[in-house]
């Protein structure tokens, strides 16, 4: 039996009724619904615009959203524990500012990346510790973290700083060919490695299972003798690290640092996670679902770009609508299993 099957519903159940089998599968319902929605949108798009039906359109969804995928991965950890991290967008901007400034001052790109990871992870760790030791709502602590990170951006510079470092520009322009017509960017590879790593951590390590247990019932997890405290702190560190990685990926993508960048990106990340089937109350969710969530957001954007007549703000309205539908779906689902 493959390791994956433990998180999948058991295929053979001797004793359980059809009803309970359905309920067992119900935890995948929101994620599956998102996947179906994504495929549907792709098919509809192909019907409306012939050029939509190309592998590259699909790959571009990844290329244009590498940073959001990584952010959503970190956010998934936090939301599964029942928390929230509002600081991620600001930490992305801070990472970009730090990257751009350090490169401008002639630092080695490797040192720059290391520094950004330390800053992002450190900020996350700090917020996690405040949340845990002072028992403060994650909403408030990460809101404060958001203001702090955004404020630091302005301290560094009010203007946009462009990145001219050869390593960064080569990463921005590099194309990894998959076939004669299809290609991806190095950023996509990095994002996929992060997703794979996160999947492994969540499903095949004790830390990952503790994340789920905390989301299910924190008190129970504590009484079972699990490492609740350190796990709760570490998920914010993971989210901070992911924000830093996303910041670097965004730098690869935009080749600049700007204080106002990634405004509201934390909300996009939360939307992607929720649309991907993670319950805001915690305990249920999958990183792969969050990736599909990001792709759904991406395809909505592509749609509106293809249409050409709609203002890009329609993206926001559609995403808002989708989010509402998914929250309602979740409510229905949790009510049934409660």
């Amino acid at each position, binding site marked *: *039996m493959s*390791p994956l*099957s*433990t998180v999948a*519903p*058991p295929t053979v*159940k*001797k*004793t*359980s009724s059809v009803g*309970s089998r359905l*309920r*067992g599968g119900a*935890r995948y319902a929101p994620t599956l619904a998102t996947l179906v929605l994504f495929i549907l949108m792709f098919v509809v798009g192909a019907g409306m615009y012939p050029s939509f039906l190309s592998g590259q359109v699909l790959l571009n969804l990844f290329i244009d959203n590498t940073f959001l995928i990584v952010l959503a991965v970190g956010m998934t950890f936090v939301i599964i524990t029942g928390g929230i991290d509002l600081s991620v967008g600001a930490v992305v901007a801070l990472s970009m500012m730090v990257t751009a400034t350090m490169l401008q001052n002639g630092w080695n790109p490797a040192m720059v990346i290391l520094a950004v990871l330390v800053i992002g992870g450190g900020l996350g760790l700090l917020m996690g510790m405040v949340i845990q030791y002072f028992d403060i709502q994650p909403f408030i602590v990460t809101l404060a973290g958001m203001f702090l990170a955004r404020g630091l951006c302005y301290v560094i510079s009010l203007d946009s700083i462009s990145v001219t470092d050869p390593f960064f520009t080569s990463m921005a322009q590099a194309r990894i060919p998959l076939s004669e017509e299809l290609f991806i960017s190095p950023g996509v590879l990095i994002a996929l490695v992060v997703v794979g790593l996160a999947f*492994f951590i969540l*499903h*095949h*390590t*004790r830390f990952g*299972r*503790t994340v*789920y*247990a905390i*989301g*299910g*019932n924190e*008190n*129970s*997890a*504590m*009484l*079972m*003798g*699990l*490492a609740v405290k350190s796990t709760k702190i570490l998920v914010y560190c993971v989210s901070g690290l992911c924000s830093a990685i996303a910041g670097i990926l965004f730098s690869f993508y935009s080749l600049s640092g700007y204080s106002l960048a990634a405004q509201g990106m934390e909300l996009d990340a939360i939307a992607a996670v929720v649309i991907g089937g993670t319950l805001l109350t915690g*305990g*249920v969710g999958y990183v792969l679902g969050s990736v599909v969530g990001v792709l759904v957001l991406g395809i909505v954007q592509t749609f509106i770009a293809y249409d050409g007549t709609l203002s890009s703000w329609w993206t926001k309205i559609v995403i808002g609508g989708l989010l509402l539908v998914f929250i309602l779906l979740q409510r229905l689902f949790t009510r049934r*299993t409660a």
Partner: protein
Amino acid sequence: MNELVPVVEMTDIAIGFPGVKALDDVSFRLFQGEVHALMGENGAGKSTLIKALTGVYTIDSGRITVLGQQKNFSTPAESQAAGISTVYQEVNLCTNLTVEENVMLGREPRRRGSIDWRAVRARTREVLAQLHLEHVEPGSLLSEHSIAVQQLIAIARSVEVNAKVLILDEPTSSLDADEVSQLFRVIRDLRDRGVAILFVSHFLEQVYELSDRMTVLRNGKLVGEYMTRDLSRMNLISKMIGKDLEVLEELDQASTRSQARLAANAQPFLETAGLGRKGSVSNVNLSIYPGEVVGLAGLLGAGRTETARLLFGADKADEGSIKIKGEPLKMRSPRTAIDHGIGFCSEDRKEEGLIGDLTVRDNLVLAMQATKGWARRIPRRVQDELVAEFIEALDIRPANPDALIRNLSGGNQQKVLLARWMVTSPDLLILDEPTRGIDIGAKTQIQKLVNRLASEGMSIVFISSELEEVLRLSDRIAIIKDRAMVADISNDDVSVEDVLTVIAGGA
């Protein structure tokens, strides 16, 4: 009995919380291969003692030794590492995870840094088989299973670690009879395998069925340790409530009120048949006539408040029926009860009854305004008259309608609460512990008031932990035991001992 070294020995344990001494020099021993019942009323310190042993609370003073080694637990993980496992009343597992994860969480076998899910499943099957739970699929979600199975899975978790000590805190409170016997079979199995089991239950019969030895606590103090077979149920109860039977006898003054007026009333105001709710209380058969005081007697936690909540619709009954004045009624919510003339003074007057930041006047008018609907405000003049009347009638002090409720003494708060219901002149008033925690003077006043209301034709359900008070006031006594109503006796010359005999189950 193995009288060698106890598996667990707790000596002179003290734990205090601000303003309360939860445990005061309590000692406790637990031997291998025995089921040891920890007995006491609510608030006696049972939970605190358990939490001290499981590392949830840190002890202020005293000594805990496990297998001869002194331990200083400050987290549940440390206690578990010492071989102590606990199954709490509200099953402390994660319902969002699978059965196998709940059994193995935190101890999953790993191979090259990754959890070996195949080994997890195999080990879970092994453990479940030991508990006769072969039918439970390890990969199914915990939430798919009944509370009883979840409880057994929690036990499976402790079997998995080869726990030396298993603590079961009220494991049977939400199980039905079959589930209880399945649980007991598992417990006896474990005991025979040498596990020391600490068992806490409000159900006396279960304690006598299962336990070998018991320790009785009262008000955070140790009363004593006894072999179950040497301690009669009567003696156990008197040790739990802390009064000798003879003393209880003296306090009892049989109700002197005439029963004659009951004869004229053929129609009971409220009748219930087999009323109950799963996990709460069952088999409530009451007939309450106008002008009658029905006392609910039973140990704390036996199901008295639960009965009251069913009658008032605060909890929805899932079996049996209620009739009011002969008409069947679906008691959907307290609203329904109030509409049909039922009032309920909660046991917890601070949390569920009064609104501390409003004045005496506001609190008094609240219930009446609610019955009138919010749109029609009661004129200030009428309010003033009513409030003045009740302040005088009930001798509420200070006699100031604008005093804030939270500044009043407990007894006076209780009077306001009573007055609040009297304003609406209900046909039936349920009083849950109306005299608890108030001084003797106010207590007598409230008792007199109950008498007066009944003689004016109001039906009253009176709940109190003080048996003598119940006997003094009630015309009839319904006895609640082990979360079911077991007897309904007319209070003519009933003694405290008679009631205790019923509670003890005729032993």
